[in-house]
Structure formats: C-alpha cells, structure tokens
C-alpha cells in the first residue's frame, strides 16, 4: 500500500464528516428518524402510513439540490465517474438491491448504526467495506 498524499484532504474530510454527522443528529433529534439514505428512498416505494411520505420527498429533494446551494458560494469540487455505462448500470442495481436487502448503506449502517454502537451495523459495515475493497482490488490489480 502506498498512501496517496496529494489526494488526502483531512481537513475537508473531517469537516464534511462533521456536517454529515450533524445532519444525522438533527434528523434524529428533530424528526425522530434515522438518516439512512437507502431506507429513506426505499420508504417511498412502500405502502406507508399517511404522513410518512412527504418528509422523505423533502429530504431527498434537499440532497439533490445541495450542489446548487453550494454553487451559489463557490464552484463545485471535481467529481468524476470513471465507470463505463454497463458497469454503472450493474453497480446501481447492486447498490439499490443490496442496500435494501441488508437494511442499510454507508449512512444508515456506517454512520448512524456505528454511532448507535449496533453490532448489526458493525457487521454490515465491515461486510460492504470488505467487498468494496475486494472488488476494487480485483478490478485494478488482478483483472487488468
């Protein structure tokens, strides 16, 4: 392993992480909800109780509009998707299906679950990080 020092941006990473944590904290304390993105989106496709739909739409809308708000103050940082179209579709399918089967993703298990000291989320996080590391290793160092 070689550390990519030029890309390592600890201050931004920590600051951004604190903002993510803060928003998870606010959704929990104000709304009584877990900030798990896959769960929030998933709930939009379920026959839910009345009053359970609008807040999900509002949250998702906020997430989608956040780059526009950011752009009002400063240009957006670089964002690059290297995956080609076929891989992208497969990846999207796996992310959608997998996160719903496993009841959570990076936010629900990785941030909220670990903050709750849930053993279930610890196992989930270690599992998806593990397969994520493995897939990148295979794609970048073994198969090409």
């Amino acid at each position, binding site marked *: 392993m070689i550390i990519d020092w030029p890309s390592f941006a600890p201050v931004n990473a920590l600051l*951004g992480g604190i903002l993510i944590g803060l928003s998870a904290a606010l959704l929990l304390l104000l709304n009584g909800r877990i900030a798990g993105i896959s769960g929030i989106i998933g709930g939009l496709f379920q026959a839910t109780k009345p009053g359970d739909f609008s807040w999900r739409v509002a949250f998702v809308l906020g997430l989608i509009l956040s780059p526009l708000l950011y752009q009002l103050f400063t240009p957006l940082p670089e964002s690059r998707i290297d995956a080609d179209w076929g891989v992208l579709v497969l990846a999207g399918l796996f992310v959608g299906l997998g996160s719903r*089967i496993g009841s959570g993703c990076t936010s629900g298990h990785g941030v909220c679950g670990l903050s709750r000291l849930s053993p279930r989320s610890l196992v989930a996080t270690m599992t998806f990080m593990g397969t994520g590391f493995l897939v990148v290793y295979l794609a970048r160092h073994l198969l090409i």
Partner: protein
Amino acid sequence: MHIASAFFIGLLFGLGLIVSGMSNPAKVLGFLDLGGNWDPSLAMVMAGAIAVGLIAFRAAGGKVTSLLGNPMQLPAIGKIDKRLVSGSALFGVGWGLAGICPGPALTLLGTGATKGFVFVAAMLAGIVLFEIFQRRRA
C-alpha cells in the same frame, strides 16, 4: 414543520457529502483501493460523522418523542443474519464497481451529470426489485 426540517437537513447532508469529497466517485474509489495509491480521506469522513453521531444517539437515548413532536422511530437492534450479510456484501460490490453509494448518487443528480442519472435509474430499479421480491414472499 417536520417536512421543512427534513428538507434543510437533506441540504446539510448533501453539503457534507460535497465538502468531504464523498460526492466524487473517483475519490471514493481511491479510498477503496487499498492495494494501490490509497487515499485515506474517507476514513476521516466516517470519524467526523461518527464523533457527532455518538453524542446525538446518546442524547436521544430513551426519548419517546422528537423535539418536533414526532415519535422516535429507531429500528430495533435485530440479529445478525444471512440477509444482513448477503445484502451488505452485494451493496459493497456495487459500491466498489462505481464508487457511488445512495447519498452521493442523489447529489450527482443535482450536478446534472448524465452518468449520475443512469446510476440513480439503475439504483431505483434495484430498490423496486427488492419491493417486488418482498411482496412475493409476504
């Protein structure tokens, strides 16, 4: 009121993703590339988020209603089963293929990236597939 707060909290979440670098799939893959040129940034994102989260979940412990008067809806801490592990494994494979997880997928929509739209369409298809399987089993 709780709808407006959800909107602003979503905005804040997205700003966090952008500031932290999580909304850049190439950077996320740099974190997942342990065998290459490894970018540890994402570990710092998790550390920052969990540091705040630990305090929040401790503060929320035992509360029945939220500050806006909604019931606290925390999932029960369930058991570790095959579903949890296989679903998470599949999610990780998808994450490793493109470097995009559900939150950043939505911020990519807002940047207008065509590839972001394709990813989100596929992700929604995966979520709908899950619902179809669920209903068949029920």
